[in-house]
């Protein structure tokens, strides 16, 4: 499988450079790290940071900017950043008001963020962590790692970013993050595996007529392999599963992401969206906003995920608030 790369070992390093050279006025790289921060911090604002393995672009650093993140740490492809990088990140984004880390639930990320928080507190930086676990495909229990954090994280970034921009305290900002986490669910599927730069071939083999349901964003196989489904069946199945989990009352307003996994033509996502919307309608839900595109990817995987978040006035205001980042912009006046 061909890729537009140089040395696979330098993949993340070069990507981070490429982001900075694309947006030199927006992004700054902390020397000798893969940590990116916004050009200049806003005094008195709670710092919002995140991080995780690379290969999910535009996640994470694509959401750095006004109204969303102050910084992000890039790990190796699909590998949590190391604790010292996360510590650097937290310290770099603190203006004295504390820092909120948005973590996608997985022990690797959680453990490294935990260690980083301990390291940062030694330097008198207050760090709060919220853990997103929106993947409804994964069985949740006290005895397991719980559910993965996937594309619902975008809604979390948007809400906490807006709250912090509006002057919210660390506690308040964390609280709106938790609110989104409580109200969001996602499920994904893949037509093909992705190809990591290191391995250079597909992570899992899929027959010509097979698909994977319940995949995450790390090229891991899903929870179920089935025969090929039509776009309509896929859209319906994913949405039904998410709604099953969220169980929103009829009449509830929802925000939706039909997310591409990196190798899916946008046209196909729009075709899937039809089924997503009719399923929502069938449940008498009211779509307040839909986003269709590549928001959290798995390299070049073909496939999609559907995220649904129930919204009230507070979340609508936060989601609609202005944002100006490479990957997501909200004018903030006409919604």
């Amino acid at each position, binding site marked *: 499988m061909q890729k537009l790369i140089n040395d696979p070992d330098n993949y993340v390093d070069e990507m981070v450079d490429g982001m900075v050279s694309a947006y030199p006025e927006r992004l700054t790289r902390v020397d000798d790290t893969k940590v990116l921060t916004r050009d200049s911090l806003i005094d008195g604002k709670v710092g919002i940071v995140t991080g995780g*393995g690379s290969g999910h672009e535009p996640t994470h650093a694509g959401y750095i900017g006004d109204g969303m993140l102050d910084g992000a740490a890039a*790990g*190796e*492809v*699909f*590998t*949590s*950043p*190391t*604790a*010292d*990088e996360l510590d650097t990140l937290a310290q770099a984004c603190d203006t004295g008001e504390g820092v909120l880390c948005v973590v996608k639930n*997985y*022990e*690797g990320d959680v*453990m*490294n963020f*935990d*260690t980083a928080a301990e390291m940062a507190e030694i330097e008198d930086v207050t760090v709060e962590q919220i853990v997103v676990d929106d*993947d409804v*495909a*994964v*069985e949740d229990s006290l*005895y*397991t*790692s719980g559910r*993965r954090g996937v594309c619902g994280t975008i809604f979390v970034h948007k809400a906490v970013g807006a709250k912090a921009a509006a002057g919210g305290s660390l506690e308040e900002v964390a609280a709106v993050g938790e609110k989104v986490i409580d109200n969001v669910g996602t499920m994904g599927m893949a037509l093909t595996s992705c190809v*990591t730069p*290191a*391995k250079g071939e597909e*992570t*899992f083999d899929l027959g010509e007529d097979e698909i994977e349901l319940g995949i*995450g964003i*790390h*090229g*891991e*196989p*899903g*929870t*179920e392999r089935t025969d090929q489904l039509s776009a309509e069946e896929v859209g319906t199945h994913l949405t039904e599963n998410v709604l099953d989990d969220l169980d929103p009352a009829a009449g509830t307003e929802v925000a939706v992401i039909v997310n591409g996994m990196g190798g899916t033509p946008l046209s196909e996502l729009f075709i899937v969206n039809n089924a997503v919307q009719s399923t929502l309608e069938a449940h008498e839900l009211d779509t307040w906003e839909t986003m269709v595109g590549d928001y959290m990817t798995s390299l070049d995987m073909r496939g999609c995920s559907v995220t649904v978040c129930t919204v009230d006035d507070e979340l609508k205001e936060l989601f609609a608030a202005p944002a100006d980042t490479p990957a997501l912009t909200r004018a903030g006046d006409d919604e």
Partner: protein
Amino acid sequence: MSEDIHERQRPVVLEAINAVADRIESEQDHLTELDSAIGDADHGANLTRGFSSVREELEEIEDEPIDAIVKEVGTTLISNVGGASGPLYGGTLLTASQELTDGFTAESSVAFAEAYLAKVKDRGDATVGDKTMVDTLTPAVHTYKKSIEEDELPPLTALAKAVDAAERGVEYTVPLKAMKGRASFLGWRSVGHQDPGATSTLYILEELLAVAET
């Protein structure tokens, strides 16, 4: 006297670290293969990145006492591995190295092993049967402790028995449903696959034994 033991053991410890690094590198593809099936295909790359860095930094600390060397290995793993295995292989050494202020003795090696296991279980919130490296470590540490403390066997023999036990631990992960780590996201589909972290833990123990035997 305690300085004596550090001087004496240092070459063996350094050799063991090198042997582990070699072994991880040569098993990189196999570990990644295992991680492809139920994880995200990077366990081999993660550990190789970590242990190559350890090898490079060894020169700088090769005059330090044993506990400092082990601690430094942990620090280097933490800042180079990432993922789940970074904290699990690195953070644990940071803690467990505190048992080695007087170098490796029959006694301190048991304490080291117990501290290491406790820290993995704590960090990972994992228990036996979760299909993780804990499944390898637990029988190995239990066997080692009993061999030394109850059976009063020499450390080398105890270590050999521990490796045997560890092997069984690896096999044991195959039929299990994963409860922790990325494989847990697969639910029942994880059954029938060998855990990568359990496997790499066995390789490390095998290398420790091989070096100790020479």
